[in-house]
């Protein structure tokens, strides 16, 4: 985009749209940000806020580790309400088989310069004395982060607006035709580029984009400061994150800046209902107290569900929509969208500006899926 004052219309003020607004405005673009509700009110308000280098695939690792660096540099400008904490992650190995996965993970991280340390049992219990006895060890990744996503989204939007972005909140986007966005209140907004960052709502505006809601359950406890010190994730997580079974549950416990524990996580496809499911909730909680026996007596104060915007292949759609030359997509971030929102915003900006990107952008282009499905019609 050679026109430095080009007008970008961003649909959706979740973490993805908010990050785009902040980054685009900083680079001198004109931005209009639209959301039917308020910033960070969708999936961004429902998830865990773990900023994590995730190695499900080389492309996932590239985007998440790039994004993690961007979070590190953003952190200085975030207010305390964003609850940014560099707690780090410990990937927990329950048995020797998991320990060999620890070694492999360590090598993968090492290869791209991500610090990690293999923990033997003694080191593991020194870090996390509340873990149950008999575990094989773990992998400590010290620079992973925990944030409070809705506050970050709001702050990024406030910053963008302070630098001149226009914001339209409380109005539904109804459709996009060519360069024009039609809103429920009959406003029409025309942009040089339209970014569809509507999360699970993206297909309403771009019906050909396969995004499915993937439901997750979470439970939050009362305040129990220093009960755990890192985000604790069982190594089975990767299988369950990308597995195909209809419901998967993994041990995933996060310390909050408030001293609360946020307990995850489950994954289910094809459920639209936001009602908490007892079976899943109790399976999840059972896993948590199995790993952290002293947590049995802690009170849970609230359980809820959220919907991850899942793409067809586990990678987000970041780039031009092959069906509409005015639209670029920024959705499908599934369970990693808080982390990868910053990388997404920078990849989009650099491509819009015709600059080279910090990591290869092609793996995330929507064309990889959309061209295929186009062919099938």
């Amino acid at each position, binding site marked *: 985009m050679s026109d430095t004052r080009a007008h970008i219309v961003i649909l959706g003020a979740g973490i993805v749209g908010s990050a785009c607004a902040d980054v685009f405005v900083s680079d001198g673009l004109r931005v209009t940000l639209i959301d039917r509700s308020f910033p960070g009110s969708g999936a961004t308000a429902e998830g865990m806020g773990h900023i994590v280098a995730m190695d499900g695939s080389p492309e996932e690792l590239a985007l998440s580790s790039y994004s993690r660096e961007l979070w590190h540099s953003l952190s200085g400008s975030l207010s305390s309400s964003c609850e940014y904490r560099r707690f780090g992650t410990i990937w927990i190995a329950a048995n020797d088989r998991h320990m060999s996965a620890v070694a492999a993970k360590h090598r993968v991280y090492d290869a791209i310069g991500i610090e990690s340390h293999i923990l033997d049992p003694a080191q593991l219990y020194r870090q996390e004395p509340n873990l149950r006895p008999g575990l094989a060890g773990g992998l400590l990744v010290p620079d992973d982060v925990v944030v409070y996503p809705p506050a970050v989204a709001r702050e990024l939007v406030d910053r963008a607006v302070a630098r001149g972005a226009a914001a339209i909140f409380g109005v539904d986007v109804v459709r996009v035709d060519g360069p024009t966005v039609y809103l429920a209140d009959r406003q029409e907004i025309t942009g040089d580029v339209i970014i569809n960052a509507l999360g699970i709502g993206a297909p309403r505006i771009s019906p050909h984009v396969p995004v499915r809601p993937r439901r997750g359950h979470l439970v939050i406890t*009362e*305040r*129990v*400061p220093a009960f755990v010190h890192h985000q604790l994730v069982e190594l089975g997580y990767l299988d369950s994150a990308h597995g195909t079974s209809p419901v998967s549950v993994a041990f995933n416990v996060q310390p909050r800046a*408030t*001293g609360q524990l946020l307990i995850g996580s489950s994954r289910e496809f094809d459920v639209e209902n936001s009602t908490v499911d007892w079976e899943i909730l109790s399976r999840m909680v059972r896993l948590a107290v199995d790993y952290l026996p002293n947590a049995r*007596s802690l*009170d849970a104060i609230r359980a809820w569900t959220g919907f991850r915007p899942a793409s067809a292949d586990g990678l987000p759609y970041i780039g031009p929509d092959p069906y509409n030359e005015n639209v670029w997509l920024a959705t499908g971030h599934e369970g990693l969208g808080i982390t990868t929102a910053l990388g997404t915003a920078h990849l989009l900006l650099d491509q819009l500006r015709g600059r080279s990107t910090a990591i290869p952008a092609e793996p995330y282009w929507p064309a990889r899926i959309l061209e295929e499905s186009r062919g099938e019609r």
Partner: protein
Amino acid sequence: MGNDDLSVTINGTGFAVSPTTSVAAAIQNAGITQFRRSVSGSSRGPLCGMGACFECRVMIDGLAHRRSCLTLCRDGMEILTDVE
């Protein structure tokens, strides 16, 4: 009021109480007004007297965040106020 035939400790000091006494009442009778500190550190004590407000939370027998207004004293109970 019934006989004072139970003994509990509050912050390490022993008190005789009757079995129909709630932990909240026992604490106040011991002259303590600050049950806990709020998240920003100000002093708090019971508000609702019926389990709704969570302002009367104390540690009872090693368990944190127990609502003292809902809990009756039991013999040998160890009660600690103003703990995280």
